[in-house]
């Protein structure tokens, strides 16, 4: 599945990476561990289908997953 990045994460990791999701899916926290690096920072939030979600949320194959740094507003 595709994982999207924004802001300074996109600058260091690119706009997206392709990642094989384990069979029964995994939690956001597990996905974050696999990605590691800048994504591991607690300031970075996970989004599923364009909404921020908690760490325990299960990621499924049809989800659009993104990791985003703190919002900086306008």
């Amino acid at each position, binding site marked *: 599945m595709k994982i*999207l990045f*924004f*802001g300074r994460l996109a600058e260091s990791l690119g706009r997206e990476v392709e990642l094989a999701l384990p069979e029964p899916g995994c939690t956001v926290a597990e996905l974050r561990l696999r990605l590691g690096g800048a994504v591991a920072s607690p300031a970075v939030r996970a989004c599923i289908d364009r909404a921020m979600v908690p760490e325990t949320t299960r990621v499924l194959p049809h989800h659009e997953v993104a990791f985003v740094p703190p*919002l900086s*507003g*306008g």
Partner: protein
Amino acid sequence: MQVRLVQGPFRPDEELASFIAGLEGDGAVVSFIGLARPADAEGHEVTGLLLDSYAGMTEASLDGIARDALARFPVSAVRIVHRCGAILPGEAIVFAAAAAPHRRAAFEAADYLMDRLKTDAALWKREDGAGGSKWIEPTAADRSDRERWSA
């Protein structure tokens, strides 16, 4: 359309004119225009801004802020126009306006729109200058301004 995320330059004066033209009997309009500053918080030259956005999520965050303002204050209309992408110093970044029968509600709603936009709009800002690029996060002042409305 009262909430728009736009890629290229927009004209705040045209936004104000069309916002006013759509009103029906309101007596008070307050607008805020945020302009890209030619210097950063430390006074160093800024040659441009990049506002990264997430298609779908960014628009939804702006919509939510506009809806919250309409629900919270006795205003009859609000408008948010926000730039994304590359922005040059002096260009408008954001236009936020509120209209109401009386001025107090219009002032409070416009103030609220900006405090929310500064902390809750799904945008990621990079300042580019002679000394390099820097990603910006909400300041302590932005966070405490936001707190004013959480009661």
